[in-house]
């Protein structure tokens, strides 16, 4: 392999510097600040902080709903990621097969992606409204009296549906481009060797999509964990009550609505560690099985 050479030894560092600066300012510094404030209780107006050791952590874990919120978050992240990946892939495969009018299908399917999470939440609120929601009327036909904001699981299901719906187009776009980058020669060869379309998909197409899937899996988990809180806030109408919420929403709620900065920081550090572990696991275990070439 040819070794890349820079004429000036400082040039690579100079080229890296802007990116490093961004990482330092927007990631490392806030993370360090969060860790620091998780050990303090702080008065919101003047920032007079009292060192309290691990109290913020123990208080967070002792709250009776922390465990329930953690379980719901795990379920929520799993379901939203898997469902939106599966549906996105299914739609991409179908759209890839369409020969006429493919671009209009694609545009229609991608449309939803342009919707901001809170707007998606607002649409969800209208669809699932207790009194006038069309989806509530629809489910009532099957004898399911859905009550958003009153019944824990009804609300949970509605939040999962809206969050999944919002993420499908994103997965669709990446899967479609992944599918279209599979060389025709490979597809044709497979067609000669194997008549079963299903089998061709699982043995040829899907493994070739593995890098895309892996990348999307990580992004979907991040989405479900962190980006959905706008949707959730809208769906629970700013009053979570007995409704299921995710850990990030709790961080937001305690920190930004309740002004409990220390408690909120401790919860976000816990999340940071969780995501760190999750990412290591993903790269160690799953990425080994992904073939990029």
């Amino acid at each position, binding site marked *: 392999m040819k070794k890349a050479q820079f004429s000036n030894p400082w040039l690579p560092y100079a080229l890296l510097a802007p990116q490093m600066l961004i990482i330092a300012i927007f990631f490392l510094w806030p993370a360090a600040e969060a860790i620091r404030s998780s050990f303090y209780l702080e008065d919101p107006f003047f920032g007079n902080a009292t060192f309290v050791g691990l109290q913020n952590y123990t208080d967070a874990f002792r709250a009776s709903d922390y465990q329930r919120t953690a379980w719901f978050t795990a379920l929520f992240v799993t379901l939203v990621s898997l469902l939106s990946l599966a549906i996105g892939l299914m739609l991409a495969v179908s759209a890839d097969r369409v020969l006429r009018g493919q671009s209009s299908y694609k545009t229609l399917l991608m449309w939803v992606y342009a919707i901001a999470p809170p707007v998606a939440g607002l649409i969800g609120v209208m669809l699932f409204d207790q009194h006038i929601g069309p989806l509530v009327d629809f489910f009532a036909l099957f004898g399911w009296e859905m009550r958003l904001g009153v019944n824990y699981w009804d609300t949970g299901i509605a939040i999962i549906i809206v969050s999944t719906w919002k993420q499908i187009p994103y997965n669709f776009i990446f899967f479609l481009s992944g599918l279209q980058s599979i060389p025709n020669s490979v597809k044709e060869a497979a067609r000669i060797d194997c008549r079963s379309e299903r089998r061709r998909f699982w043995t040829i197409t899907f493994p070739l999509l593995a890098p895309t899937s892996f990348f999307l899996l990580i992004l979907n988990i991040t989405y479900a964990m962190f980006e959905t809180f706008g949707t959730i806030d809208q769906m629970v109408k*700013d*009053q979570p009550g*007995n409704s299921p919420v995710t850990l990030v929403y709790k961080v937001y709620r305690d920190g930004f609505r309740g*002004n409990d900065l220390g408690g909120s920081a401790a919860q976000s550090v816990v999340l940071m560690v969780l995501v760190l572990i999750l990412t290591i696991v993903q790269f160690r275990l799953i990425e080994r099985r992904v073939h990029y070439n």
Partner: protein
Amino acid sequence: MLRTTLFAAAAALAANGAAAQTEITWWHAMGGQLGETVNELANRFNESQSDYRITPVYKGGYEDTLTATIAAFRAGEQPNIVQVFDAGAATIIGAEGAVIPVADLITEAGVDFNAEDYIPGVRFFYADSAGKMVGMPFNSSAPIMYYNTAALEEAGVEAPKTWEEFEAIAPALKEAGYVPLAQSHTPWIFTENFHSRHNIPFATNNNGFDGAQGTQILVNNDAIKTHFTKLKEWLDAGYYGYYGAGWGDNQAPFENGEVAIWLGSSGSFGGLKNSVDFDFSADVLPYWEAINPNPTASFIGGAALFAMSGKSDEENRAAAEFFKFLSSADVQAFWHKETGYVPITTAAYEQVKAEGYYDETPQAEVGITQLNLPTGDYSKGYRLGFYVQIRDVMNREYGRIFAGETDVETAFATIEEEGNRLLERFAQTSN
């Protein structure tokens, strides 16, 4: 580009022309129609004199406004006046030095100020433990009972004065095809004001007014547990409808005629008047005769205006002048009639009464009547820190009671335990 420059030049000229004016800003949480009324108030103040100019800025809901204020204060960019709601009172009043008490602000500016001018229930809630007014009550409301007149007539019943009476008429209302009862804010109406109305202590340290250190919540008591046991029974029997923790979800079924009696805010009157097409009336919040045969007043809800510190004398004077303007009888009468929030001074109340407004719309008087009821030691409200989270805990546990996930006993034990932990945490931030 040219247009922008011209515009900027014109703006600069206009600003020069009014160089003597002192500009102040006012952050508030009044959206929609209420926001329009707030803008109208500001316009009237700006037109009433030429020395000061106030600019109202809508900052989102109550919690958003408080959070934005805190962030701005820490950056030294705070507004002159900010609207803070009842549950945030402990946070802002507890941060000594963040605000200038209204009483001081007004006296220092040389503007006449007499605390006695204000209605008693209003005066105490935003005062310090010595009784000095810290916040200027602005949109003050009381939880009251609204009822669909036709629904009650159809069922052949009278509006209940007590919960015992409600229990007696509920079957008839249900029979007539209505959900007899709904309410929009379980912590505010069925918890905080339940304690006020029955004169039951809500927290130690004089309901928290004497300071945050060592304050404990006393919500785990038999009276309120009886009330919630009844509510659950009523819910199961179809006498009470619970539509979640959101305000609007519980108001909607009253507006569309499903619910016969709805407990909401006296400030809901302005909106209801426009949104419903049936006749409705209002009365004071029912009470349990078995718990207290001599019910007391409810405390003041809503929000108050606070003058932030760190501003020039000129600007503080402008804020003081604005508060004076806001307390004047004419302005209060306008605000009261436009929104349904109660007038904060006795003079304004007398004026509106003299105009005969309550003869036409007796519903509008209910809030004031209720606030003017006899007060007790524990009827004037509470001051508790991290109260937004405590309300979250209440809403969660109440939701679980109504969903049958927990029982009343366990729920109140949880509220007490988690409430006290939050209060303890708050006390640690303010020492």
